[in-house]
């Protein structure tokens, strides 16, 4: 976080490195610095995972993350947002997503964090494919479930 109101968006190859929740910046204005790490879990839908493979549509993913960060920062009056997302193969236990939010008080940071991640999943063109230990054909189940869900409520352009 380089300066108050700063937005930083980074898409990196591979897992995110260990990270310190920095707060030296924000010039004494931040009362809360909240850091969210999204980590690859061993078990996905009851199956043992080896890794997740992330595919991003760049630079749209970066643009959408930036737009989202700006919207959320404005809505909640945040001091700074840092977003990091991996692409490529991320093993179990490794971090693929990181969101750091600095704000004057805790409530807006926590609310913004939940909101950001919900909207990220809705709008940011990044896909994950599960790599299972035993079972091939990774995301077919997920895909089929989604198709069935959406066959019932169709919208002309999905918006």
């Amino acid at each position: 976080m380089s300066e108050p109101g700063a937005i930083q968006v980074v898409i990196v190859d591979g897992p995110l490195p260990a990270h310190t929740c920095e707060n030296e910046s924000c010039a004494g204005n931040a009362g809360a610095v909240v850091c969210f790490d999204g980590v690859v879990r061993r078990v996905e839908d009851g199956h043992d995972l080896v890794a997740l493979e992330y595919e991003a549509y760049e630079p749209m993913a970066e643009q959408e993350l930036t737009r989202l960060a700006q919207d959320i920062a404005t809505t909640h009056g945040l001091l700074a947002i840092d977003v990091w997302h991996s692409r490529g193969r991320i093993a179990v236990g490794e971090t693929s997503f990181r969101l750091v939010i600095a704000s004057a008080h805790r409530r807006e940071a926590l609310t913004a964090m939940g909101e950001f991640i919900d909207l990220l999943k809705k709008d940011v063109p990044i896909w994950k494919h599960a790599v299972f230990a035993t079972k091939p054909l990774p995301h077919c189940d997920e895909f089929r479930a989604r198709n069935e869900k959406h066959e019932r409520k169709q919208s002309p352009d999905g918006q």
Partner: protein
Amino acid sequence: MMFWVWNCWAQCTLEYMDVTVLLFGPASTAAGTDRVTVCLESDHTVGSLRDALAAQYPALEVVLTWGRIAVNQKYAPSITVIKADDEVALVALVSGG
């Protein structure tokens, strides 16, 4: 007046355009490729692109029910007109992070 309407209709319907559509995630899985080329016959809007995609690539029909079209890396509503050099993608998110 009659001439103007005819002229517009002729322009809209007669200018065929090939559009390459980038595919990702489930759209790419469904089509078995990371891009398809679709021929727009009537107008060149995103709405028509969706109809043409579904007609010309039946494998994409289901993904199109929830997927959104991005033009030049921005989500575009149905009325957006696609130009020759635009980058067009079918973005069908399952989950993101």
